[in-house]
Structures are given as structure tokens and as C-alpha cells.
């Protein structure tokens, strides 16, 4: 694995997050902290609230997300809803002056207008439009195929969420959907960082979205370890985490940390984190490692420009791996995100970055994503 490093003056910033997971809206529920709980790098890790057998679904409370549901929202499948809602949360968390034009464009079908070429949409998803694929597949089988819905077919492209966001928010910058399994959200963040560092955009909505759909959840809920359980060894969850990433060039917001819509908690480390400035991506690395030879210890030795104070493992790991990771990272805590949310797939790493933004103090955070088919991705973050 080769690491790509960003110079001190080029490390892209995370300026806002929109996070939807079965744990709730925002990063607060991810931290597993009540109003009086300690959060931060020195906080105890676990025991976490058990996810249990309940469906790992997100309850999207539209009124909490927007005053008036955008018209586009009515056309979306679950995958689109989650992505759109998370992106909207992120944009609403931006200061009004730094926000792309929002409400005017999304309350009606946008007519002719000029797209902003400076803002891109780079996302990742492992399962993407799986549910719409299944629906179109069922509708289009047999002699009734000509009666199937063209609207459903339109939702069967994996990059539909990018399109929705681009159209509704008039974002005309670089666009891509990575579908490389659970590391796809990390890839989106890496691609966004490079796009920003190379000056191809000034801001990017980057993150991951997963909407497993009922078939995979049924399969998984049945506890069928011989088949689906082989691949999805944790509770398969839906969710979305999208960040607004901006180039390193300074603005008035340079001294502000990333925000989300969760009310800020005033616990000590979190308060310190907020004072420390925005989270930045300092380096990243990725590789294909189907035999799982790359250990956390190797990643911790990577040439990050700052020492790591916390490790967030974004995807379900075998317990042996986690035990080894905790030994390697000690005394630094290792937080296993799926314990709190279920397996978020490609949305896991972006959610982990959002959590890192809430927890990280002066020391850096290493976010590790791993796909059981071989992908491994590491994001080295710091203030």
C-alpha cells in the first residue's frame, strides 16, 4: 500500500457532515454519549448499546430535515432518500454564506439555470440501488414486462443519488459513484480530496450511502450463517454519511470545526475538538488484500504527519482481528463502529470520519475500512 499525503497547506477540510444511521441523526448518537457522558479520545470504549435483532433501519423524520419536503424526495427510492437527506443535512450545517444555493432549486423542478462547476458529488455504495434493481427485475419478467415502470428503471443506475443531488442543488462539478464494496465510501473521500488538492473543484459532497433493501435484510435476519452470514457477519444496516469537503485554501470558516445538525455537546474533549479547527484529511492509502495480510499495526506505522490518538474501525471485523488491533493500538482506543450502528457498508467510513470530527482532539484519528472481499482503505485525519 502506498500512501498519498497532502502537504500541510493542501490537506482538504471537512466543513460539515450529514449523518443518518440506525443510531440516530448526527454524530452524537454514534458517539454513544448521553448529555452527560464523556466523549473524546480518552473516553471508555464500550460496552455499547446493543443493536440487537431490531431492523437496522433509519427513521427519517422529514420535518427534522427540512421545513418543506423537497419535491424530488417524492421520486426517490430508499437509496435516494437516504443520500439526499444526508447531503441536505450536511448543507444545512454550513453557514448560510458558504452554502450552495439550496431551497430555491429544490422546492420545484429546476428549470434552465447555470450549474456550479466548482462543487462536485463523489459517493460510494456497496449495494447502491439494489432494491430498485430487484423491483425492476420483478416488474420486467415475463409477458407483463411492457407494463413495468420506466421510473423504476431510472432508479436502477448506481449513480442515481449523484444525479439527484446534482440536479436539485445545481452542482456541476466532478461526479462519480464508487461501488467497490465497503471501502467505496473511503474511496469517495479519497477521490474528493485529490480533486480538491488538484484544484478541480473548490468543494465536494463526499460520502457513502447504503440501503440494503428487504431481501438482503430478510436473508440476514434469518441468521443464515451458511450463506449470507458468510459475507455479512454483522447486522446489515442502512444509512448515509455525507461530508462537505472543501479545499485547503483558507476562508472565514477556516477556524471552525465541521458541524452537523446534532446540537453540540459541551463535554470537555468535544469542546476542545471544536476549538481545534476543522478536521482535515492528511493522508490516505488503499489496497486489495483478500488474504487480510495488512494489519492495523502496519497502518498505524504509516507516515502520517500527526500521531494517532484514536482508531475508528468502520466495518465489521472478526473478533480476533479486533483483539489484535486493540493490542497494536494500545493505549489508544479502538472504536468498532458497527457495534453501534450495525454494518453500514460503504457509509461506515464516512460516518466514522464524522465521528472522528466530533471526538478528535489535538491528536489524529485513523479511520480504517475493510471489505471482506479484500478492499482495505485507511484515512489519516487530524486538525
Amino acid at each position, binding site marked *: 500500500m*502506498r500512501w498519498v499525503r497532502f502537504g500541510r497547506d493542501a490537506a482538504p477540510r471537512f466543513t460539515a457532515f450529514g449523518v443518518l444511521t440506525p443510531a440516530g441523526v448526527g454524530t452524537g448518537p454514534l458517539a454513544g454519549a448521553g448529555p452527560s457522558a464523556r466523549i473524546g479520545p480518552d473516553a471508555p470504549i464500550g460496552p455499547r448499546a446493543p443493536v440487537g435483532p431490531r431492523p437496522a433501519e433509519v427513521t427519517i423524520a422529514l420535518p427534522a430535515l427540512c421545513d418543506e419536503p423537497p419535491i424530488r424526495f417524492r421520486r426517490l427510492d430508499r437509496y435516494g432518500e437516504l443520500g439526499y437527506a444526508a447531503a441536505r443535512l450536511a448543507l444545512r450545517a454550513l453557514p448560510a454564506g458558504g452554502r450552495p444555493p439550496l431551497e430555491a432549486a429544490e422546492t420545484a423542478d429546476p428549470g434552465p439555470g447555470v450549474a456550479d462547476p466548482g462543487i462536485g458529488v463523489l459517493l460510494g455504495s456497496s449495494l447502491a440501488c439494489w432494491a430498485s434493481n430487484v423491483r425492476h427485475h420483478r416488474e420486467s419478467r415475463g409477458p407483463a414486462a411492457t407494463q413495468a415502470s420506466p421510473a423504476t428503471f*431510472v432508479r436502477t443506475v448506481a449513480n442515481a443519488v449523484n444525479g439527484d443531488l446534482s440536479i436539485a442543488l445545481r452542482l456541476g462539478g466532478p461526479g462519480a459513484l464508487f461501488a467497490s464494496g465497503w471501502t467505496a465510501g473511503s474511496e469517495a473521500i479519497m477521490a474528493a480530496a485529490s480533486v480538491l488538492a488538484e484544484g478541480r473543484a473548490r468543494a465536494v459532497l463526499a460520502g457513502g450511502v447504503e440501503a440494503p433493501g428487504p431481501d438482503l435484510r430478510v436473508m440476514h435476519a434469518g441468521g443464515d450463517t451458511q450463506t449470507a452470514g458468510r459475507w455479512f457477519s454483522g447486522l446489515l444496516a442502512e444509512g448515509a454519511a455525507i461530508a462537505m469537503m472543501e479545499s485547503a485554501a483558507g476562508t472565514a470558516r477556516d477556524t471552525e470545526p465541521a458541524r452537523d445538525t446534532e446540537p453540540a455537546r459541551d463535554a470537555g474533549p468535544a469542546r476542545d475538538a471544536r476549538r481545534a479547527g476543522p478536521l482535515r484529511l492528511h493522508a490516505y492509502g488503499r489496497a486489495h488484500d483478500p488474504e487480510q495480510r495488512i494489519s492495523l499495526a502496519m497502518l498505524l506505522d504509516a507516515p502520517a504527519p500527526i500521531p494517532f490518538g484514536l482508531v475508528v474501525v468502520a466495518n465489521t471485523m472478526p473478533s480476533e482481528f479486533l483483539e489484535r488491533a486493540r493490542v497494536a493500538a494500545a493505549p489508544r482506543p479502538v472504536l468498532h463502529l458497527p457495534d453501534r450502528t450495525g454494518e453500514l457498508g460503504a457509509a461506515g467510513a464516512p460516518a466514522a470520519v464524522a465521528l472522528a470530527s466530533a471526538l478528535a482532539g489535538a491528536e489524529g484519528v485513523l479511520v480504517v475500512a475493510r471489505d471482506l472481499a479484500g478492499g482495505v482503505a485507511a484515512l489519516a485525519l487530524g486538525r
Partner: protein
Amino acid sequence: MRHEPSTPEPSIPGARATSPEPPRARRRVVVTGMGAVTAAGRGVERFWRACVEGRSALRPDARFSAGDPRLLPLGLVGDPFPADEERASALALDACDEAVRGAGFAAGGAPPRGAGLVLGTCLGGAIATLGWIDDVERRGAPALRDCPFPGPGGLAAPALRLAARHGLTGPVSTMSTACSSGTGAVAAAADAIRRGESDVMFAGGVDALSAFVVSGFGLLRALASTEVRPFDRRRDGLALGEGAAIVVLEEAGSARRRGAPILAEILGAGTALDAHHMTGPSPDGAGVVRAITAALSEAGAAAESVDFISAHGTGTSFNDRMETVAFKRLFGGRAALIPIDSVKPIIGHTLGAAGALEAILCARVLAEGIVPPTINYREPDPECDLDYVPNEARRVVVRRALSTSSGFGGHNAALFLGAP
């Protein structure tokens, strides 16, 4: 499959750290191998000959026309492939084998350690996964254990198969941006080399035909009734095809040191969102203009340097008009002097493979000095009034070639290639 030694790469702890900036001091990226599977047959040469000779490989076929009585022109790959291999993966593996041989890796075995892959696709191995749904429904929920889930992959399945076959340990990625996937994948792989993530990247696209896709485009009334006629006044839609294309990209210095054949150079690439409509292109071509502008900017090249354009050219009314508008906006009066072609009437619209196949076409145009024709062009459209190289190939000296792709979701991508 290549077997790795039991110890991990020494570079893992970070012996190699690179920086993506400054952009203009980047490493150069060259094409050293190419492989293709299309309705014209297996191999780049068959694809190229069909294009140059203007010989359409589309055939009327009712195989996937569920509920539609018409015989639709389809670009199906007729060659046999292993029955136990998921079809998109089989196509991609075949194309990749050719590319690896062409790049000269065959003599020394597998590609070098740390080689990676970016594969573009609309559906990847999803059709096989949907077959699992059918299986589950036939057997009923209690019998789930008897319906082995096809495993991880879905969209990523072909990329994972390629990675396993060739022992890839670098970045392995799947990109899905509808019909611009193949172009975007080549662009992303070139970026990975420029950023120093790897010295060798495979890149390309693949999609297999299925009733799923044919019925979908039928529902959108986007399919041609008889033949595909890009830029012609009588054009009435696209014909679907299947195929795969893989190119081997290498850092130029590394390729030269090992004596690899250098077939073309990736000078620049760009992507841009239309921000207009999920299925219809922006009529003013703004997204395509931005993608091309980004590609030229990355190359540090002026618009005047474009000698040839491999257009998306689907044969739909909206796409061909939009591309014509975009080329006029970019190139002004010179647009009428640039030869433009579409290979869609030859092999069909191969979706995620299309952009990668057209990148290969550009490399051959650069090497051969021949621009393939746009066939079935008989009646000029006043709204499409550029030089589409109608019906007969033409000898042209081409030093710089541009390839453009557009897809659902408003994704546009452009590749700018140069002669080696």
C-alpha cells in the same frame, strides 16, 4: 492466480509516500496493453477491423425482448465463454487476458506487485445476484439455506474476479456512472498512477446484456427500431450491445524501462455533472463542455489541438444534438473541421464498456491514421451539421484524440489521448 509471499509488502508501513500536488508536475501515463470483446468478436483487432470496414455486428434478436414483439438489433457477443463464470466477469477476464499479453507481462508472469484496477460498469455481476432472488422465490423463504447467496460483489464482482486472476494488490475499484463508467474508470486509473498510488493500473469497462437492461431501455422508448443512425435526421434510438474493454496503464518511465509497447498516452481526463435531468442530457451540452474543458486543462492543451473526436453518438435524438452543440461551443468554427465518429452502429451501446472501448478506438486511430466511419448516415440533420465521417473510413493524421461519454444521472466524462 499469482500467489503473494507470506510477508506483506515492505511498502505497507509507508515506505512510499506520495503527494498529489502540484498537478502539473505529475507523472505521465501511457497505454501499454489493450483487450476487447465485442459483438464483432474477441480481440481488439476484430473490433478495429469492424469499425474501419463499417461492418455492423448488430443482429435482430428477440432473446431479451420480454413482452415486446419486435426483433431488436442487439450487439451480442457470440463467442462461447465458460458457463460457470458470471457473464460480465467472463467478458472482462477475456479482455484483460488480451491486454496483459499485449503489455508484455505474459513472458514475465503476472503484472508487478502493487498493480491495481478501476473497472467501470452499469450492472457488473448484479444480474447473477438477481438470479438468486428468483431462486429464493422459487424455493420459498424456508429454503434459504439451499440457495447459496452469490457472495459479495454484485456491481464489483467482475473487478474482484480480475483482481483474483491477476493477483492485484494495489487499489481495486469499481466505478458506476452509467454509460460514462468506462471513460471514468480509465480517468480514475490514470489519476491513481499520477498520484503515485501505483505504477501499473488496469482500467476499463464491462457490461453484459440481459432482459433487465433491454426491457428498461424499451420502457424509456430509447431503442432503435431497425438500425442505429447517429447524427442522421432519421435517427430513432440506440441499439444495446455487450462487451468489455481493458487497457493497461503505466507510468511512462516505468513502461519505457521495461521495454513495454507504448500505444498511446493519457494526456488528460475530466468528469462533470449535467445538473439537468436523470435521463436526458442538458440541451446546451454544458456538462460535456465542462468535462472536455477539464480534460484539456489537465493536459495543458488548447482546444485547437484536438484532431479527432470519438463521440458518445448513441443515435438518440437528444444525445446527438446535444453533443453537436457542445462541440460547437468548444471548438467554434473549427468544430466542422474535426472528424467525429460513433461506433455505436457497429457494436451497439455497450453501456459501462462503451467509454473504454472508445478509448481503445482512439489509440488505434492515433496509431493507424485512419478514422472509422459513422455508418448508416444518409440524411443530414440541420441540427447535426458537423463532419461525422459518413459511411467510409478516412485517412487522417491524428496526433490528439478526444473521447466523450455521457450517462444517466447527468454524468459526463472525457478522455484526451495523444500519440506515443
